[in-house]
C-alpha cells in the first residue's frame, strides 16, 4: 500500500512539471504586460521594475529561476498586490475555498446518496419519478443560474440568508447548495442505478429470507456494495468543484482562491495565475490518488501495485 502510494506520487510529478511549464509558457507568450498603464512610464522606471522581477533576463533563465523558487515553496511576489507574496495570498484564500468545497461535498453526499436510495427502493412510483426529475433538473441547471435565483429569492425577496460575503455559517449555506446541486443530481442518479442492480442480487434475497429488517438490508447490505461507483467519480468531482468555485465565489463575493484567480486573470498578474493553477493541479493529482486508495480499501477485488 505504502509502496503504491509513493509510486503514484512519483507519477504525479511529471504532470505537475508539465503544468508548471505550460502555464509559464502561456503567461510569457501573452502580448501586453502587467505594468502596461494608461500613462507611459519613464524608461528608467520600467527598467527598474523589470530588474526587480527578473523580467530583463532571458526566458530560459526566468524559467529556471521560477522552477527553483517553486521547489522552495516560494511562488514569487504578486505583481498587483504590491508587497504581498503569492504564497501568502494562497495561504489566506485556500482555507476559504476548501471550507466551501467541503460544505458542497456535504450537500452532494447528503442529498445525492439518500435521494438515490429512496428512488431505487420505491422504483417506478411517484417518489422515484420525482427524485429522478429533480436530479435531471439539478444536472441541467448551470450553477450561476441556480446561484442567482437563490440570491434573488432567499436574500432579496425573503431576506432569509445573506446574499454575499463570508462572515459566518449563515453565509455558507447558499453557496454550498449552488455549488453542490449539480453533482448531487449526478450522484443521486448513479446511486439509484447501482442500488437497483444490487437489489436484484441473490444475497439480498438471502438477507431478506433470514428475516433481516428492511433498513438493515438496504443500508448494510445493499448500500455497501453499491458505493464503489460513487467513490470512483469523486476524483473528477474535485476538479469540478475547483472550477465551480470560480463562479460561486464570484456570485457570492467570497474571498477565496477562485475569485482571486479571476481577478488575477483580468489584471494579468502572472505569478498569481501560475501559483493558483499549480495549487489546483496538485489538488487534483492528490485527489485522484486518494480516490484510487479508497477504492482499493473498500473493494478487496481491486489490487494495488500491479
Amino acid at each position: 500500500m505504502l509502496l503504491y502510494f509513493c509510486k503514484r506520487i512519483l507519477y504525479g510529478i511529471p504532470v505537475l512539471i508539465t503544468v508548471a511549464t505550460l502555464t509559464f509558457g502561456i503567461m510569457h507568450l501573452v502580448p501586453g504586460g502587467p505594468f502596461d498603464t494608461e500613462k507611459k512610464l519613464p524608461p528608467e522606471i520600467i527598467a527598474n521594475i523589470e530588474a526587480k522581477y527578473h523580467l530583463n533576463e532571458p526566458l530560459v533563465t526566468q524559467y529556471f529561476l521560477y522552477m527553483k523558487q517553486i521547489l522552495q515553496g516560494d511562488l514569487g511576489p504578486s505583481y498587483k498586490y504590491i508587497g504581498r507574496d503569492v504564497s501568502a495570498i494562497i495561504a489566506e484564500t485556500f482555507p476559504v475555498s476548501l471550507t466551501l468545497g467541503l460544505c458542497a461535498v456535504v450537500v452532494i453526499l447528503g442529498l445525492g446518496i439518500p435521494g438515490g436510495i429512496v428512488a431505487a427502493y420505491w422504483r417506478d412510483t411517484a417518489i422515484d419519478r420525482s427524485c429522478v426529475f429533480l436530479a435531471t433538473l439539478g444536472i441541467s441547471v448551470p450553477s450561476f443560474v441556480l446561484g442567482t435565483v437563490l440570491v434573488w429569492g432567499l436574500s432579496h425577496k425573503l431576506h432569509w440568508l445573506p446574499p454575499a460575503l463570508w462572515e459566518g455559517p449563515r453565509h455558507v449555506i447558499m453557496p454550498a447548495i449552488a455549488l453542490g446541486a449539480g453533482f448531487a443530481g449526478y450522484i443521486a442518479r448513479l446511486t439509484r442505478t447501482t442500488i437497483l442492480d444490487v437489489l436484484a442480487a441473490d444475497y439480498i434475497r438471502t438477507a431478506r429470507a433470514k428475516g433481516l429488517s428492511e433498513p438493515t438490508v438496504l443500508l448494510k447490505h445493499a448500500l455497501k456494495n453499491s458505493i464503489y461507483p460513487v467513490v470512483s467519480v469523486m476524483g473528477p468531482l474535485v476538479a469540478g468543484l475547483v472550477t465551480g468555485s470560480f463562479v460561486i465565489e464570484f456570485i457570492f463575493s467570497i474571498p477565496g482562491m477562485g475569485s482571486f484567480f479571476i481577478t488575477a486573470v483580468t489584471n494579468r498578474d502572472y505569478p498569481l495565475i501560475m501559483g493558483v493553477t499549480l495549487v489546483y493541479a496538485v489538488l487534483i493529482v492528490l485527489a485522484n490518488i486518494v480516490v484510487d486508495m479508497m477504492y482499493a480499501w473498500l473493494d478487496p477485488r481491486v489490487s494495488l501495485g500491479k
Partner: protein
Amino acid sequence: MKHFPLSSRLSALFLVAVALAAIFAPWVAPFSYETQDTANTLASPNPANWLGTDRLGRDLFSRMIYGARVSLFIGVATTVLAILIGTVYGAVSGYAGKRTDNLMMRIVDVVFALPDLLMIILITVLMGRGVTGIFIALTMVSWVTVARLVRGEVLRIKELTFVEAARALGASHARIFVREIFPNLVGILIITLSFRIPVAILAESTLSFIGLGISPPFSSWGTLANDGWTAVKFYPHLILFPSLAIFFTILAFNFLGEGLRDALDPRT
C-alpha cells in the same frame, strides 16, 4: 426511430425554433440589438418590449435573439470541430495500437490533467477574449473527450470478425477504416454531438458570466446574464430571461441526447 420519447421530440422542436430565430434574427427580432431608447430604460416586461429593456433602453428580447446566434454558434461549431479532430486522432490512435497509441494517449492525458474551465481561461489569456479566442480554447479542450471515446470504440470494433474478413480479403487500411469501421461510429458520434453541445454552451456562458468570456460588441446569453447580475435586486428580469434561455437550451440538448442514445446506441 420507433421509440423516440415525447420529451426528446419536444426538445428537438424547441431547438429548431431557437436555431431558426437565431439564423433569421434580423427578421424575427422586433428591434435591433443596439437601438437605445433612453426614455424607456429598465422597463419591466410589457406589450411593446416583451421581456423588458436594459439600462440603455435596449429591447431584451431582441438582444436575446441576437445572443442566441453567438451562444449557439459557439456551442455547435466548437463541438463539430472537436468531434472532427477527436475522431481522426482517436481513430488513428486506436487503429495503430501499440506504441503509437500509448504515445498519443499520453498527450491526451496531459490535456485531461487540468479542469476544462481552468484550461479555457488560460488559453483565452493567450488568445484574447473575442469569439475566436473562446472558439479555439473550447475546441482545444473538448476534442480529447471525443478522442478517448473513439479510440475505445475503434479498439473494440477492429477485433470484430467483419473487419478481420475485410483484412483477409486484402483491403487497405484506408478502405477498412472508411468502409468497415467508420459506419459503426456514426451513431455514437451523433449522440456525442448532442451531449457535447450543451457542455460547450455552458462553458461559454459561464465564462461570459464571470466576465472572462465574450466581450462587446458581441454578446451571448452569458454576457447578457452578466449585465443583468449587477441589477438583480431591483430588475431581476434582466438576468432571469437570459438564464432561462441557457437552462432550457441545455435541458433540451440533454433530453434530445438521451432519446438519441436509446434509439441509436446498440449497447443500450
